[in-house]
């Protein structure tokens, strides 16, 4: 009886703590992605060139306190220290970029110098340009590239127009783009039917939020 009581009390408390705390942070940064897959003349993939545009709130926050000659505008030089901080700290997050060649994970090197930030004063948004070289260039029949933050603190999505380009790819390569699914009313309904700890395998929400590029070079 005492045992049962112990278990009841412990379970009740544990349940309470989990229920109250097991929620995730929502995104605080929104990034619009434009990417280029770069190919060498021999048909191997050598790297990914990213252009990430941040939302206006984060852009304004990030540029707060940065000295500029012209108020409300920033040159690439003025933003250089910020670009360096961004690229350095992105390393900790694997640059949010995950690639597979023929089903096998491929590794990226750190971005070489030449990355920079641009500020668009009209929309007050920052865009970060950087290149991720592959550690070893690969020839891939099947290449997939995903851009996402698994903690979902940063919400990545592909640009509406021309989100991905193949640069120097063999002519027979075909590109397809998977966009994160909008949280539709139907999906929300489906989600609400699930218990908080339940994950429906047919409803792979994480994958649907991910931005996936697939290149087939048969």
């Amino acid at each position, binding site marked *: 009886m005492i045992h049962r009581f112990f278990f009841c009390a412990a379970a009740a408390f544990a349940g309470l*703590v989990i229920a109250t705390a097991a929620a995730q942070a929502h995104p605080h940064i929104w990034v619009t992605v434009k990417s280029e897959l770069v190919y060498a003349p021999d048909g191997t993939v050598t790297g990914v060139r990213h252009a990430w545009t941040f939302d206006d709130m*984060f852009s304004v926050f990030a540029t707060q306190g940065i000295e500029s000659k012209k108020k409300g505008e920033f040159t690439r030089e003025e933003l250089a220290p910020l670009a360096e901080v961004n690229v350095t700290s992105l390393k900790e997050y694997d640059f949010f970029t995950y690639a597979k060649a023929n089903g096998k994970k491929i590794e990226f090197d750190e971005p070489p110098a030449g990355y920079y930030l641009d500020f668009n004063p009209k929309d007050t948004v920052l865009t970060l340009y950087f290149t991720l070289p592959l550690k070893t260039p690969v020839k891939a029949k099947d290449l997939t590239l995903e851009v996402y933050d698994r*903690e979902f603190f940063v919400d990545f999505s592909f640009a509406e127009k021309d989100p991905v380009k193949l640069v120097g790819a063999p002519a027979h390569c075909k590109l397809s783009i998977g966009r994160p699914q909008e949280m539709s009313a139907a999906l929300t309904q489906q989600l609400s039917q699930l218990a908080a700890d339940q994950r429906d395998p047919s409803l792979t929400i*994480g994958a649907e939020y991910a931005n996936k590029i697939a290149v087939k070079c048969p």
Partner: protein
Amino acid sequence: MSVNIAVERRRVVHIALLVAVIAGLLFATGLLDGAFAQGGPFGAPRTQAPAPPVGGVLGWIFTKQAEFYRQFSSLLRAAKADGSAAWSLLGLSFLYGIFHAAGPGHGKAVISSYIIANNETWTRGVVLSFASALLQALVAVAVVGLAAALLNATAATMGRAVNVIEIVSYSLIIVIGVRLLWVKGRAFLALLHTLHRPAAVGAAVTPRPHDHAHHGHAHHSHAHNGHDHSHGHDYGHHHHGEGHAHHHHHADDEDASAWGHAHAPEPEELAGPGGWKRGLSAIVAVGLRPCSGAILVLVFALAQGLFWAGVASTFVMGIGTAITVAVIASIAVGARAWAQHLADARSGYGMLAMRGVEVGAAVVIIAFGALLLTGYMVSERMVGI
């Protein structure tokens, strides 16, 4: 001799149970860590699969708050041109606060554990929730007001300031947990000791009708008034209990003091200076860390030349947050009362179980503080990729 062995064995069983409860709670904390930290960015193992936003009600909350959050920038811009948009901004801030508090951070777990460990009343739970949420808003305004508005510091500088605040806050959480563990752990062991004393076992284990509780109350508060408040109330309780365990001149007194402990604190206890001081440490520990959302909104408002709108929004957000935290705190108070109800039916051993739960809650607080401090658990990543 054989009696001693039996007592020893029982004690071992109880200690084993206590360890099991603590382990269970730690495990729960671990699960929860996995649920929202997903390994964390600080070198902890990261799984390959993307973390799906939690489904169900939480998934909905999650979508909602992101939706609300995205409207801040456009509403702040609108407020610049048209003052009436400020009202929409405040409405949005309130809703965002309510939903956002369901996410990590904002001290729900710490406050709930604290309430359970410390046997706080509902009123105190609500006051703790509101005070910590408003302190959080105040700190956000102070950080942005001082750093950005006055000193024109960069985002990186603000990030570092928040980092220092975080370390202080998490350390304080650990200190509170350790203090509670010390007090509650000793109370638990003292009670265990009492229950296993042959003379005391008879008194404490025999179920007694509830009218003894009244006696307990009177006796208890009496002893309390005579106590030095600077020691803190738990200390007071403890010495009181221990004194009885050692002398137990009177079987009725023994029982009364045990019941007296288990009941909600008397009003005079709450009003006492030590009582509020005790709560203050929890408020500061939890409320010190500003929420990154509020900091972003404030900086954005400042850039639009509408700092006041950002400040108003932050405080309204704090009220929304407080409401959610208060609801969760109320659940904690209710859960504890329910457990107490079960414990009351089981006399001395029920009391022991309650003490055990309190010890467990103190351990959870320490675990939370430690995980947050070591960066293994991210309460809410500070903006700055």
